[in-house]
């Protein structure tokens, strides 16, 4: 049986996740339980959602450097307005998604580099977050907390959530016609345009969907932490980009994989736990995390080359 190139792309992230998981289980057998798995992976759920958001932006050949501050901002909204007056909270979050769609339009119409626009927006989101919560605080809405701490039978909620996120975004991005068009913008914008589609609207749709998943990331994060502060998710910018790449996505060409992105986010989270179980000193941990990334990426390059050689033959 011949594997499709998409499946081959998924092999490396899935295999690296499995290897890391086996290593963690070996070092810490306690993790091999319902609560253990939940503790290992529950903080990966918001990262996975942010990674999906980043992936949508990357599928139209853009990059979002405001992901971390935007998720922090939505976390602050969740811990304040969404909790005290849900109607206003939903309105603000909807407004934030609309702002994302507008960003997509501006970037396209004015032909601006997305990196510059989103970098600028990161200060706007950061400022708004500080305005909302000048000092750490707020509280998670009851229903959010309930979802994130739910105890479904057999499989912990962190795994259930990851599977749902992967499956639904796979349908949305890989199977729906909108998803195909958005990836088409990344792959060959001109041919999509010639076929009669409006690139502006497609880009706006991609950005709006990204905003939607980033909002979900903020809500999920507050569900886990029970409260927010303005700097809570700053790391998510780089984590989300690393997650997409780790999961087999690429910076250009509309080549992305939602299932891979979720696996990438889980792998990144697990790598942190792995290093902590190894008792590696914190001075080396960031470096070691980078080393894991490089090893996985090197493996992928190697596979890509194999794939090309197969094609040439």
């Amino acid at each position, binding site marked *: 049986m011949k594997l499709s190139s998409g499946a081959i792309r998924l092999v490396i992230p899935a295999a690296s996740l499995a290897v890391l998981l086996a290593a963690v289980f070996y070092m810490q057998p306690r993790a091999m339980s319902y609560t253990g798995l939940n*503790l290992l992976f529950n903080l990966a759920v918001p990262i996975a959602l942010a990674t999906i958001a980043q992936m949508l932006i990357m599928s139209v050949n853009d990059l979002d450097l405001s992901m971390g501050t935007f998720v922090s901002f939505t976390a602050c909204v969740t811990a304040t307005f969404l909790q005290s007056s849900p109607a206003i909270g939903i309105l603000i979050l909807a407004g934030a998604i609309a702002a994302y769609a507008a960003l997509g339009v501006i970037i396209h119409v004015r032909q601006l580099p997305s990196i510059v626009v989103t970098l600028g927006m990161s200060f706007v989101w950061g400022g708004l977050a500080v305005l909302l919560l000048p000092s750490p605080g*707020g509280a998670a809405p009851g229903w959010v907390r309930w979802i994130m701490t739910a105890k479904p039978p057999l499989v912990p909620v962190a795994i259930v959530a990851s599977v749902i996120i992967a499956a639904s975004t796979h349908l949305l991005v890989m199977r729906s016609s909108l998803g195909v068009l958005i990836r088409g913008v990344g792959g060959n914008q001109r041919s999509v345009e010639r076929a009669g589609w409006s690139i502006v609207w497609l880009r706006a749709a991609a950005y709006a969907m990204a905003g939607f998943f980033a909002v979900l990331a903020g809500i999920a994060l507050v569900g886990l*932490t029970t409260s927010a502060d303005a700097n*809570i998710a700053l790391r998510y910018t780089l984590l989300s980009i690393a997650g997409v790449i780790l999961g087999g996505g690429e910076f250009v060409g509309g080549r992305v994989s939602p299932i891979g992105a979720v696996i990438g986010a889980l792998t990144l989270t697990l790598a*942190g736990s792995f290093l902590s179980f190894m008792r590696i000193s914190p001075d080396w941990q960031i470096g070691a995390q980078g080393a894991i990334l490089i090893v996985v990426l090197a493996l992928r390059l190697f596979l890509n080359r194999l794939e090309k050689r197969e094609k040439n033959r």
Partner: protein
Amino acid sequence: MTIKKMLLASIALAFVAAPISASAETADKRIALSNNYAGNSWRQAMLTSWDKITKEAVNEGTVAAADAFTTAENQATEQAAQIQNLILQGYDAIVVNAASPTALNGAIKEACDAGIVVVSFDGIVTEPCAWRIAVDFKAMGESQIEYLAKKMPEGGNLLEIRGLAGVSVDDEIHAGIQAGVEKNPQFKIVGSVNGDWAQDVAQRAVAGILPSLPEIAAVVTQGGDGYGAAQAFAAANRPMPTIVMGNREDELRWWKEQKDANGYETMSVSIAPGVSTLAFWVAQQILDGKDVKKDLTVPFLRIDQENLEANLESTEKGGVANVEYSLEDAQKVIGADM
């Protein structure tokens, strides 16, 4: 005969075992330190103190292990993940210096639900199931005015150097100073600047406000800013006021120089980085089954004219004056708050 031998042996064994069993309640317990930041002299001293005291405790068999973990980045999400890992590693107690008072509450709750004792100190957490060892920063501010009231009963103008705006510690020390001034109306705060707990920032800020100020009798501070203030006064050729210091080595050294040269008098107050060891003993006591109140206050470390030399000698260059706590100190703190 054999029975007699067995009896003797068991008695001997009982004697040998007795001293160990005094602390055997926690001999198999493992305590972890979860720390969010290690990038300044205070935190380094905190980790060194932890290392020193807990190593002794482990060697004596009081606890089985006391490992310190510091997150690679000062982020609440990182520390939450770290705490969840510590739960998985099966520690019996986790001592936390938290990156955020609220954002770790989810992870802390998970730890409590797993039956783990959580003790937070310095950067405390609000989750009700955790213990808190807080510093009474308000009393620390008030003590400065009380000292000044004793030293100069006639009162005078004060310059207040505050810390980093928007941080709760700054608000609390400031509230203490305000309360002190209200009680001693002979003092008047004529100026206030933010020194950000850093000598260079404090020096700039004080130099900027000095020309607009009348004669200053004393400067009330928050620590880490006294030396900078002194430099600013000296540069402006103004009479040197009584500057309350904050236990930093450069402040103490300057104070010593002035004391030797012209009998300069002041006091110095801050919290000791060794508070991590107090948290360690409190966690050990809780594991030992002691009934400990959820909110404890740690005494702050004060240096006066008489013990300046001794404290300066024991403080590392560029460091902070420190004390490490013993089991007895911890029991005293627990007892005082009961």
